[in-house]
């Protein structure tokens, strides 16, 4: 074990893989060569249409210990991951590495395959029940959590070698061109599958909406696709569009959103040219959009662009002319899906252009304001989005660490969730280091990272309740008391990878009490 620059202890090697400890948010500078997919030739691709999913899977030649990948644009309505892994299990395969861009509660059936050894571990992202299974030590190897940009980087750099990529495609042609804009399982953007299509040994496009050539836009290009097959349904349309996109009705969360909007006003961000933001689709974020929209209308400010996840509220702003462009990474509701298909300035993006760290620049640092949620933040502004305070792995990183490259990164979260304070002395797990977090907005005050003297200076004279993060911690603990720490076994069950591939923290197996 060696300490990284945050003092977290990192194993030198795990499951035969050498680890590099995190040395700072922007310490890494690339080097080496990218991974290269195999050379193929036209004569072998006269007909890519397979008779069934089974035929497509068999055509991939998957063996024990190989790596299979998925994207998560179908969210909690996805049937494809379970369908494919069930079939891999039927074939008696073992020790597979699963590389989903995210998992949802709908993927709970994977736990059986984890317990039976079909899946050895997961790289990418885990949510809900599968995260819990990992924390309880049910995977035979250590999992790796990466951000969306980190996942692209890992595939591009060869840290992940995908043997077979399974791409759920709401609209596809028999050449393999596909997008998510239409069809019974329309989900809008499918950009998270881009890296998989470029670098996998075998790429399978699975659709429930096969169209004659050409399907356009070809978000995934047929020239990168090996096999196309159809299934009855990719997923449950009701669940594909998650129910999270509703403005919060909680007065406390509305107050947090109001403070976030006042922060934008009082720091003078709106008066600078080319305002841009990324706010996500949680309840606080949507309420923030409402307050922000009011302010923009009053001041006549138009945002040059907003980064999606798109949703009804963002699309309304686009159509009203408050935003010139939506640069969209995923669609959270049907209004987002429709707008992506129809509006010329609603642009589909992928993690290469928006988030990947090993490229010649990306969008993330061009965003003026990024608003994010968090499970915990400590008095050094380090943030945890992965584990609950009881030490259990419950969430993936999503785009979190990528968004921290925004010019101002704001955490907006309730100071207390039930009895649990959001501010700790030291976060249970570090997802992002304090150096990239600029301000915390809670219902009981706004704390600016002392390193951002420029922001503090701009807030002089603001009537926002500006406090130090230590003061906010005192207020929270004054009500709640200091929580006890979870107990762990020695075994590392997951690694939290920073955007550049270094390890910022580990997650240890939970001690099961009684």
């Amino acid at each position, binding site marked *: 074990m060696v300490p990284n620059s945050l003092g977290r202890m990192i194993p030198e090697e795990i499951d035969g893989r050498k680890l590099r400890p995190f040395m700072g948010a922007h310490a890494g500078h690339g080097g080496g060569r990218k991974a290269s997919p195999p050379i193929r030739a036209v004569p072998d691709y006269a007909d890519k249409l397979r008779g069934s999913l089974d035929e497509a899977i068999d055509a991939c030649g998957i063996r024990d210990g190989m790596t299979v990948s998925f994207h998560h644009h179908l969210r909690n309505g996805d049937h494809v991951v379970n369908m494919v892994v069930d079939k891999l299990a039927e074939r008696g395969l073992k020790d597979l590495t699963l590389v989903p861009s995210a998992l949802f509660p709908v993927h709970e059936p994977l736990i059986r395959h984890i317990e039976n050894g079909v899946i050895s571990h997961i790289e990418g992202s885990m949510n809900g029940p599968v995260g819990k299974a990992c924390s309880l030590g049910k995977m035979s190897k250590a999992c790796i959590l990466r951000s969306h940009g980190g996942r692209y980087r890992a595939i591009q750099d060869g840290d992940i070698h995908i043997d077979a990529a399974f791409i759920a495609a709401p609209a596809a042609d028999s050449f393999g061109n596909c997008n998510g804009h239409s069809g019974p399982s329309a989900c809008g953007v499918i950009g998270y599958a881009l890296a998989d299509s470029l670098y996998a040994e075998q790429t399978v496009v699975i659709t429930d909406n096969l169209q004659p050539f050409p399907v356009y836009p070809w978000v995934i290009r047929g020239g990168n696709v090996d096999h196309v097959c159809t299934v009855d349904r990719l997923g449950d349309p009701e669940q594909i569009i998650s129910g999270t996109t509703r403005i919060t009705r909680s*007065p*406390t969360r*509305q*107050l947090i959103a*109001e403070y976030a*909007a*006042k922060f934008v*006003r009082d720091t003078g961000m709106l008066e600078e040219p080319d305002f841009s933001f990324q706010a996500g689709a949680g309840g606080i974020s949507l309420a923030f959009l409402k*307050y922000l929209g*009011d*302010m923009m209308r*009053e001041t006549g400010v138009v945002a040059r662009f907003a980064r999606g996840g798109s949703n009804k509220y963002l699309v309304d702003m686009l159509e009203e002319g408050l935003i010139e462009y939506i640069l969209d990474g995923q669609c959270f509701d049907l209004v987002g899906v429709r707008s992506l298909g129809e509006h010329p300035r609603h642009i589909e993006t992928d993690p290469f252009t928006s988030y990947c760290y090993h490229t010649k620049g990306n969008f993330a640092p061009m965003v003026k304001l990024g608003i994010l949620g968090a499970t915990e933040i400590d008095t050094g502004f380090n943030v945890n989005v992965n584990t609950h*305070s*009881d*030490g259990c792995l419950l969430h993936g990183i999503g785009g979190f660490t990528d968004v921290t490259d925004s010019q101002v990164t704001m955490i907006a979260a309730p100071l*207390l*969730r*039930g*009895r*649990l304070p959001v501010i700790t002395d030291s976060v249970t797990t570090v997802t992002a280091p304090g150096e990239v977090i600029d301000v915390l907005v809670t*219902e*009981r005050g706004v704390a600016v990272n002392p390193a951002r003297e420029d922001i503090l200076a701009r807030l002089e*004279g603001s*009537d926002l309740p500006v406090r130090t993060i230590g003061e906010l911690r005192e207020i929270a603990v*004054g*009500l*709640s*008391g200091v*929580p*006890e720490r*979870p107990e762990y076994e020695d075994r590392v069950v997951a690694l939290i990878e920073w955007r550049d591939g270094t390890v910022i923290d580990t997650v240890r197996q939970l001690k099961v*009490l009684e």
Partner: protein
Amino acid sequence: MSDSVQARAGREGKKNDLVVLLTEKDAGGIEISVKSSAGQMFGSQIEKTARETLENLGFENCRLAIDDMGAFDYVIMARIEAAARRLRKIGGPGCLPDRKVDYGPPRKERLRRTRLYMPGNNPDLMINGGLFGADSVILDLEDSVSPGEKDAARILVRNTLLTIDYFDCERIVRINPLSTEYGAMDLEMVVPYGVDTILVPKCESAEDVMAVEKIVAGLEKKHSLGYEVLIMPLIETAKGILNAYGIGGASGRVVALCFGAEDFTADIGAERTKKGTESFTARSLLVLGAKAAGVQVIDTVFSDVQDEEGLIASTREAMALGFEGKGVIHPAQIAPIHSVFSPAPERIEYAKKVVSAIEKARARGSGVATIGSKMIDAPIETRARKILRLAEELGLLADDDGEAGGKTGRVS
């Protein structure tokens, strides 16, 4: 003694609350079991608080089962005390949490544009009640608490008053009418522990106020409070309206008369409408009664939380009638009401001109001031000075060289 002597308290499955089940035993000491949504992090703290509370209340042998949803200590203590009091008679004040807040004596003169109602048996709403910028908060023991929970709510409200910081808000408790079995017990439980003002519902006569005052004064003396708790009568019947002047003048503690439309319309046998025609005369009479008695007057709540335009219209009407505030049932209603009650910049400017004209005239030794061709008489001066006081209190007066800041608590 059998195991069947047991009592329960708390609301099941509600955030920041817990359910306790307390069983008397003959022997074996105190046994506590804790199930909690925050179990790993707070389990042993919950157990420690529970044990201390039981010991404090004089329990030696009992079994306590806790099912917790993230309650703070003062809520845990309140629920255990409620169960304990349901089991046996507890002498003394009960088990009080340490006082974490101390505000000084109640202030009679203050803005009361908004009074935020919160159900007195719901800890999750009361915890953050002071954050939304209301002028007053009302912890309610009356209509929002069912008869079976009155005892538990008053303990919770007492503990809340001792623990939760309401900052600059006036802390009001709405008690049950003294004509019910609850009213006097409500007073006993809240008067000594930091309440500013008692909201007296269904107040119909000066005698109603004096009855409350008598008990309150007795408690102040018994607990050596050293200050006077204020009284705010809530007028909700035809009789109360006709007696408004007498109610307003019944005690020097009365700070404002409030109107309650729901009970009033029921009392006169009319439907309550958004427009409020059915209560127009009553509200006008209430304003007259309060003003004649020299106290503030506050309008009823606007019950459609979604309808901001309707709220603003209703507040404008109330202000036009002479009301100085409205009841509030959701924090989102606070900012719109404050914006209506905040004087517009033109009115502030005009008030400044009035005062400056008068001061110049006085400096000249002249009794007559004018703006343009208009003479400024005494009522105009009074109104202007009132507007400037309000503007100053709200931080709306521009500095010599600076911009005016707002204190309306709203993004604008």
